[in-house]
């Protein structure tokens, strides 16, 4: 059902934990819906220098959390914002169709944490393309409408 890569990330997830001095924090999902994720970011010079997560959910949710956090470590916030769940799924070698939604959790947590970081700095939040009129050509950091 799951790829070997998924099972590897799931059984040995990276970046599990909390950051007491996080610069950005995101919490998404609700346990009654099945998936919950908390994400902690440490940011230096607009770049993610440390990241931790905790996830309640199925193997796909945990593996996506591990993979996504590994991928954004070292990225600029703009790069991290652009990381889509499809990128995470690809890095995992695919997910069963019924489990794709689990990878959205990590994408959402990252964006929530980035906007938390921006809010703490007094910056206006970036918006996902779907909530503006850029037509999906680029939004958030790159978006004229942002």
């Amino acid at each position: 059902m799951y790829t070997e890569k998924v099972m590897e990330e799931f059984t040995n997830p990276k970046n599990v934990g909390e950051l007491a001095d996080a610069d950005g924090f995101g919490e998404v999902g609700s346990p009654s819906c099945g998936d919950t994720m908390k994400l902690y970011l440490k940011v230096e010079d607009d770049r993610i220098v440390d990241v931790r997560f905790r996830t309640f959910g199925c193997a796909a949710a945990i593996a996506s959390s591990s993979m996504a956090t590994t991928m954004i470590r070292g990225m600029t916030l703009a790069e991290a914002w652009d990381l889509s769940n499809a990128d995470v799924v690809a890095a995992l070698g695919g997910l069963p169709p019924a489990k794709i939604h689990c990878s959205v959790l990590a994408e959402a947590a990252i964006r929530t944490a980035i906007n938390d970081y921006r809010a703490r700095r007094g910056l206006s939040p970036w918006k996902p393309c779907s909530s503006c009129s850029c037509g999906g050509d680029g939004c958030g950091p790159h978006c004229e409408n942002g």
Partner: protein
Amino acid sequence: MNDQAERPVYMDHAATTFIKPEVIAAMAPYFSQYFGNPSSLYRFAGEPRKGVDAAREQVAAALGATPAEVFFCAGGSEADNWAIKGVALANHKRGDHIVTTAIEHHAVLHTCEWLEKHGFSVTYLPVDTFGRVDPGDVEEAITGRTVLISVMTANNEIGTIQPVARIGRIAHDHDVLFHTDAVQAIGAVPIDVESMNIDLLSLSGHKFYGPKGTGALYVRRGTRLENLVHGGGQERGRRAGTENVPGIVGMGKAIELATADIEGHNRRLAAMRDRLIREVLSTIPDSRLNGHPTERLANNANFSFRYVEGESILLMLDARGICASTGSACSSASLEPSHVLLATGLAHEEAHGSLRLTLGDANTEDDVGYVLEVLPEVIGRLRQISPLTPPAGKRVPEAE
């Protein structure tokens, strides 16, 4: 992964069982030597026909029925569909109401929903926190339009055994037909269709060490029942299709073996089950037993572990060579928490963190010991990952 991975500790016998060697041996000659069609007239069809007849007697004997009341089909789902649609459609002039429970298998529930789309009304009775149906509720639900009561003998997820004999009594007092899905109960709950007032009963071969794709419906003599599969005259005109002779023979042998010593079998499995339950509850904090403390299948242990999710538990166990289940096997690809656990009053998050271990004939105390070693580690590991686990002070001690 680990050593156990190659030959896993299999504790998912409610999903399916291995086939006993005696059953395979019984089936073997019917694949090649006695391959004839039992409906054929020549002598070469005699052995297959005798094989089917003997299996019918074995099934009848296991249920306290007569062979003429046993009809073979292709599994528990077909038997459930047949019983419920068959009774409903054959009796729709007399009534259009069915009484069942909220914790039936999907083969019953989805069939009832289908009938609702076709003009029937269905009462889904609630259960208590242990998953038991109140026979008083059954009685109250009966109306002048009720044609069928369908209550399972034992639940596939939490193992709760229902007061089927009392429900049968009530059904008959009110002149309503009574069907029970005994798929999980064969070999574990002694069945006597007469004293239990059962009119229709479903069973499935692969749940009691018989072959997959085999099942039977017991139909009390004189019961009005429409066919589900129309066609040739097999099964005395009630279920069309060339008989799956090896499968039927295997199921007959399997039910004979499974019901030869129910008490001894239960004693052996219950000892392991009780050890599992006792030690899991005492070593893993924030764990609870789902289902009834005593009125449960001897092989079933079903737990909820707070703060963690079932599929994760299952796959971590799998990585350590343990086969288990969360919710029922056939719905494990779905994202909904188990309708059975929700019906017993569990919150969504508790229902999500359920684990079902179902023992079988090949399990040993060593297997139980291995599970008791691995499970606390797995739960501990997942709780480390989970954001719901309470902070350190209140934290679960790390499994060593």
